[in-house]
């Protein structure tokens, strides 16, 4: 028995060290995010000036993979056609949809077959045909065999004509000036190869004609909790890593990439469910390995709004998929870990993500179990048990409130004080059950990856209750 107790005493120190490291890491990221945001706020002085028409901005290809999106695809494309940018093309990639997606596109945009002769730089599933809109010269549609989102994006890259491409989810709601904002890092620094923007939660907001018209909060608890989670993930997670050039993920919902760099890296991997993260990690790895200077940047402006799950079942499936994607992205790019030429991304961001995000769920679930068993065995006293539970909750709240603070410092998108109060309440509530259940789902995702299940389109049933047709 004493051996067990000795082992448990050793383990408790291990958990304590982990606990201190993970929270120390998050708080450090928080400080970095504050500094970065400060600079961003300073440069908002330009927001008050009229934007000069700048035809020096590089043209952009907007790639919109679509799988069974018949009910919403026409509205989405119509809103994308209204983006304010001087030169862009939209390429919708119908990835072998089984519904009426293609028919919908054909009739809404008067598509005609287009004999596109293009350079197939990335291998993809067979393309049945390319169509061109007779009403919008900058709109084309690729109709191809089903191959998954990554394959669809690769087909889009092949057919795209411009040096930058923007991968967009068909159901994303974009800010009208999103392209202008996201292209800025590419203009400011020629080394920029990828840029991601903040994705916000659209549930509870008002959308008309494909654009956001009023920011609001959802009535349901689950999406409300995810708003705080998104603020945390984007406003300090990614913003914190950016000054170190160590951001490991750009959301698949909206990200701008230099096409040549992506092609050089081999395009999107089709055998992963986390193709967005995997590509970014691989870009880091290959650029570090080849000693090519590069920057992967985060733009804190809210450029894209997305619907989050409103039921536990869908949320679970999403989180399991995310964890699996994370596992695949990290394990296929282990060469980035402690690479002598790897810089911050190799020595900090990658190990941090590996320990705290990837295997973190195992340690944390084990830690919870340990505390309970330890308490039962008398290895952990009641005061210690309560003290650590209290600290974990307080730290959780602190990190979320910091994200709220960043939001209020910068964009203050939630106009009513009541909304801020509700979000603060959520940052407390999430510590009592929500974080624990997402932890279990992440663990489940890890097991799914470990025991292997087939990858498929990462689609999520959406209610689109926020959507209102244009009056």
């Amino acid at each position: 028995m004493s051996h067990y107790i000795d082992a448990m005493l050793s383990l408790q120190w291990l958990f304590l060290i982990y606990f201190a490291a993970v929270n120390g890491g998050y708080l450090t990221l928080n400080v970095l995010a504050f500094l970065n945001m400060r600079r961003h706020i300073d440069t908002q002085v330009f927001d008050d000036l009229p934007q000069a028409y700048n035809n020096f901005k590089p043209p952009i290809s907007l790639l919109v993979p679509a799988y069974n999106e018949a009910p919403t695809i026409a509205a989405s494309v119509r809103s994308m056609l209204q983006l304010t940018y001087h030169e862009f093309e939209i390429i919708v990639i119908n990835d072998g949809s089984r519904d009426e997606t293609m028919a919908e596109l054909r009739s809404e945009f008067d598509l005609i077959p287009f004999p596109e002769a293009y350079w197939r730089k990335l291998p993809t599933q067979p393309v049945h045909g390319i169509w061109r809109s007779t009403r919008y010269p900058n709109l084309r549609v690729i109709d191809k065999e089903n191959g998954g989102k990554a394959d669809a994006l690769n087909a889009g890259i092949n057919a795209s004509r411009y040096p930058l491409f923007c991968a967009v989810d068909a159901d994303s709601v974009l800010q009208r000036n999103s392209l202008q904002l996201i292209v800025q890092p590419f203009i400011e620094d020629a080394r920029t190869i990828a840029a991601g923007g903040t994705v916000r939660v659209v549930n509870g907001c008002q959308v008309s004609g494909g654009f956001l018209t009023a920011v609001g909060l959802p009535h349901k608890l689950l999406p409300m909790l995810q708003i705080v989670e998104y603020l945390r993930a984007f406003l300090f997670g990614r913003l914190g890593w950016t000054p170190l050039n160590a951001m490991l993920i750009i959301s698949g919902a909206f990200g701008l990439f230099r096409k040549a760099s992506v092609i050089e890296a081999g395009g999107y991997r089709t055998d992963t469910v986390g193709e967005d993260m995997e590509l970014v990690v691989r870009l880091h790895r290959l650029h570090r390995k080849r000693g090519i200077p590069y920057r992967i940047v985060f733009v804190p402006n809210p450029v894209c709004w997305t619907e989050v799950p409103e039921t536990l079942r869908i949320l679970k499936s999403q989180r399991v998929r995310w964890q699996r994607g994370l596992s695949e992205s990290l394990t296929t790019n282990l060469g980035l870990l402690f690479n002598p030429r790897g810089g911050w991304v190799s020595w900090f961001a990658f190990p941090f993500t590996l320990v705290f995000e990837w295997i973190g769920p195992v340690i944390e679930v084990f830690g919870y179990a340990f505390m309970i068993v330890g308490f039962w065995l008398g290895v952990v006293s009641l005061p210690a048990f309560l003290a650590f539970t209290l600290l974990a909750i307080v730290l959780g709240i602190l990190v979320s409130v910091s994200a709220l603070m960043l939001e209020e410092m910068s964009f203050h998108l939630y106009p009513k004080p009541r909304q801020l109060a509700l979000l603060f309440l959520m940052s407390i509530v999430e510590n009592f059950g929500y974080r624990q259940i997402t932890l279990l789902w992440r663990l489940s995702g890890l097991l799914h990856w470990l025991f292997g299940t087939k990858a498929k389109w990462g689609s999520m049933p959406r209610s689109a209750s926020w959507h209102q047709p244009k009056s």
Partner: protein
Amino acid sequence: MLSEHLAQLVVWLSIALSVLILLLLVQIALLRIGLVRRTAREQRFLKVWQPILAAAVAGEPGDLPPLADDEKIFFMKLWNHLHESLRGKARRQLNVIALRCGILQDVYALLGRKDLRSRLLALITLGHLGDRSSWNNILKLTRHRDPLLSLVAARTLFQIHPESALTDLMQPLLEREDWPTAQLALLLQEAGQENIFAMLAKTASQLAGSTDPAGLARLNRLLRLLEVAPYQLVIAAIRAIFAVTADAEIIAQCLKFLREPNDLPTVMRHLDHPDWVVRLQVAQALGRIGTARDTTQLAKLLSDPVWWVRYRAAQAMVSLMRGNSPALAELRTRLTDRYAQDALEMVLTERGGR
């Protein structure tokens, strides 16, 4: 067992962090209150000053109400916004108003501050005012390692006096890699003075014979900046560069400038260039200055191994044959190379020719 002392320490730490959370909440509340007050104050300011500045722009400046200290930033924001939206005499009227309001000293004070926001606002305002008295301070800021601050400082100098700015900034213009060429080109275009483009073209001629990588990089950058220059000011320099350079990147850059049929021999000289970027520019140049007689030469590029060259060659072909559908259709049937046929077919469909 976990020591009671440690547990106590953890409790105290939790209490301290809870206090921090409360402080953050207070800060959030203060930020919101500040925002609401600032917005209301700004609205009141705009209600008074927008009509005044509008009248001033129309050439009817009346009496000016006193400008409170906390209104000066609002004034600068509104004034700069109008400045960027207007041209010519209206801008001069705005400058008169700004000087009557006595904001110059406040702008100098902002320029001397350390925070980025104040410095940027001061630089933008000084650029619009065309005030030369802070020239040296602004010049110092162009050497700042922050690319944004230094570039805005450079823009201010170009707004104040383009020729002097170019003299002082020629070296960083050609060498500072963190100054994006697109932004610099915009800045030069805004300055819009023929003298500065002539000076840049002269420098390009001087660099024409460069063979070392640094010299070639500077020339390349210079050529990108000259893309916004009036054609007649740069073409002599471009021809001089063509006469001596063998660098593919420079040749490709120079081909972009050609507009006259008498430059056709220069274009044709590079038809078989080993670098595809040069061949691509050849195709585009032929599309601009070629004639129907050049289609035979252009047809070679329709079979180029690089997709982009074939595509541009096809576009040029359609342009040279002035969209003559029967002739183009006949040409397509004569082509034996499938890639050439595809490229032409695609461009014809794009133009609605089929």
